[in-house]
């Protein structure tokens, strides 16, 4: 299952993703409603965090009302009418990628497969990728780093 991945080397913390997300979902300009949130630590950390669509999602496991489920495509999705607003999912998620708003849970739904945040990301830090693709990129980065001297020579 692909998910929205953020490369912290590229993320500048501009929060355009936080504005785009609710503009698509709720048609408002309000970062508080965003399903993707930027974390900044001084001086060199900026990273956007959103749902990773986990294969064994802890949020689904702890939800007492069956309001979260894995869809046929692999998306972790919300059945809003079943949500009782207990925040157990927020406690369970290791990344802080799911929370309540106005008493109901909101989380990344990948905009139906073409995430608006990815399209709008100026530094191209956000990508829609699968675990396989991330691993491939990491392998390349790792090898390039390990062999930098040899490559240069």
């Amino acid at each position: 299952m692909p998910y929205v991945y953020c490369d912290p080397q590229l993320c500048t913390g501009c929060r355009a993703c936080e504005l785009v997300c609710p503009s698509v979902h709720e048609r408002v300009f309000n970062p508080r409603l965003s399903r993707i949130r930027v974390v900044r630590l001084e001086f060199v950390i900026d990273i956007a965090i959103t749902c990773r669509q986990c294969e064994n999602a802890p949020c689904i496991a702890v939800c007492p009302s069956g309001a979260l489920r894995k869809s046929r495509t692999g998306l972790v999705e919300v059945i809003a009418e079943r949500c009782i607003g207990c925040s157990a999912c927020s406690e369970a998620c290791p990344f802080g990628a799911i929370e309540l708003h106005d008493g109901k849970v909101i989380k990344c739904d990948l905009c139906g497969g073409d995430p608006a945040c990815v399209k709008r990301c100026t530094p191209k830090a956000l990508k829609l990728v699968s675990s396989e693709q991330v691993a491939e990129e990491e392998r390349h980065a790792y090898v390039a780093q390990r062999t930098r001297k040899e490559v240069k020579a």
Partner: protein
Amino acid sequence: MMPALKGYAGQILRVDLTRGKILKRPLPPDLARGYIGGSGMGARILYDEVPPEVKPLSPKNHLIFATGPVTGTIYPPSGRYCVVTRAPLTGIWGEAHSGGYWGPELKYAGYDLIVIYGRAPKPIYLAIDDDEVELRDAKHLWGKNIAETTDAIEKEFGEPKPCVACIGQAGENLVRFACIVNERSRVAGRTGVGAVMGSKRLKAVAVRGSKGVEVADFDRVCELAEESHERYTTGEWGEVCQDSLYRYGTLGLVDWENEIGRLPTKGHQTGVFEHAREIGPERFVREFVVHRRSCMNCSIQCKKVSRAREGPHVGITEGPEYETIVALGSNCLVRDFPAVMRANQLCNLYGMDTISCGGAVSFAFECYDRGVLSKEKAGMPLRWGDGNAEVKLMKLIAFRKGIGNVLAEGMREAARRIGKGSERWAIQVKGLEVSGQDGRPHQSAGLTHAISVIGAAHLRALSSLDELDYRKTLTKRFGKERAKAMGDRLSTKYKGLLVKDVEDLYAVVDSLITCKYGTMWPPMFYFNDYAELLPALTGIEEFGKVKGLRIAAERIVNLKRAYNARLGLDRKDDTLPNRFLKDPMPDGPAKGKVVDLKPMLDEYYRERGWDVRTGLQKRKTLERFGLTDVAQDLTKHRRIAKG
């Protein structure tokens, strides 16, 4: 409460620090219709509420934080706010702009502007959490620097973190060019707005908001935002934006300005710095940049975090920007890049404007060099190019120790105190230290410095159209015949018109509020773009026509001018130091040139409809822009031109 107008939060927060009273008032629709937002609205309030007898550091002076209809929306870049006040550095109209996240957060909390007056009996800070607004004790924060203050307030608020705009020790000590710093490194820098905050014993304004911004035509705003984003990131302009600003930040300018002989060097004595490469963009990126950053919702992303790993100035800072690298680098003849970074960091921590602070340092260096300032009086040798001395001066200025106490008054006053002819190399206009341009190789920049309403700044009216000869754009805006003369940066022809046009455009930009990147450079947005955007944001039809928008722009420019006129300013103040008017440029492509100010100034006044002899405004000009009441007021003060 429903906002009266779309695009605005719909409320003004008025804070009386003397009485500890907080009032929420609806945003008057006429204020929005007449003055758009940002520094435009600020101008109207300051003109009406701060009469000429109120001194800048008096409790009666107002400190206005303002956002505009773009702030907090998806239209990039939308992360800006401004501070408007009667400025302590210059004694006249003062405004300073900043980016970051603070401006949007204020709107999300439900306020377009904060108007602050009075003086608190003891140090306090203003805490805004949506509808809950209170003054909190800041005794424990007094004496703390920007980072410490921000950290402490963030802790007090808890999660989600608020945005904090605060002053450092420089603001507390009433350093005349103290600034206000938000999110640790974004700075409302010029004219000493931080000293006004310090005089009010207001340490910080912390904001947390959850409400979002409503606009008139949501789909249209999204569409225009998408189009704006495309312009910033793709095509001819988008590519240069990304190549230059994303890669190097504003610092990318150093090489180019040195090439055209416009890199202020050694107290503006020359425009060519032989060691420019050592403080240039290639070295910056290669050796120091460790991370890239941005303001809220920006499609350019020019901010850099830099780090010096070794030597005496080890440390990490955001910046330095072009203006800082000039003010604290080439203009002080300092080529020790880490020293400039350290000075920049200290300015950010103590809360001082790097341009004016750098001006003070170069002034001190020149005083020392010319034997006007002794080693004993200065407390140390102040030799041109000594980065370590520069770094030491930062602390002395911020804490007003020794020579720092004199320099903290700003160049104009420092020259008065030191005397011995030192005003000849106090390179300031109207009391404001000259920013990183030189009118000799770029004539219109000379006019910009001379007429700028806050003093010698670049952000009120600087044109890149002639600097880089953007002939296509010039032709489109002014016609082929004029464009040819305008494109020559060494010519004075039509520069009055050019600067007037740019100043009007920036009046809109500063009221929206959006970034000068996109208007100043690259010149890709113009009145027609904002005439499309503003009605979609606000629903105000008058802004939908370029003509209507231009009238609003001229109204704002005239109002700010009237504020200064009422204080006694006129043509005699619209001038430049003799260094630009009389000393020929010694090096570079503009060798032998001086600024030929008079013809440009005459043309500028004519284009504005002001009296050419005195520079005062005419009644009929003010009436044309709906400023009849201002005309009456100026008549009462005898500060209006005849006819």
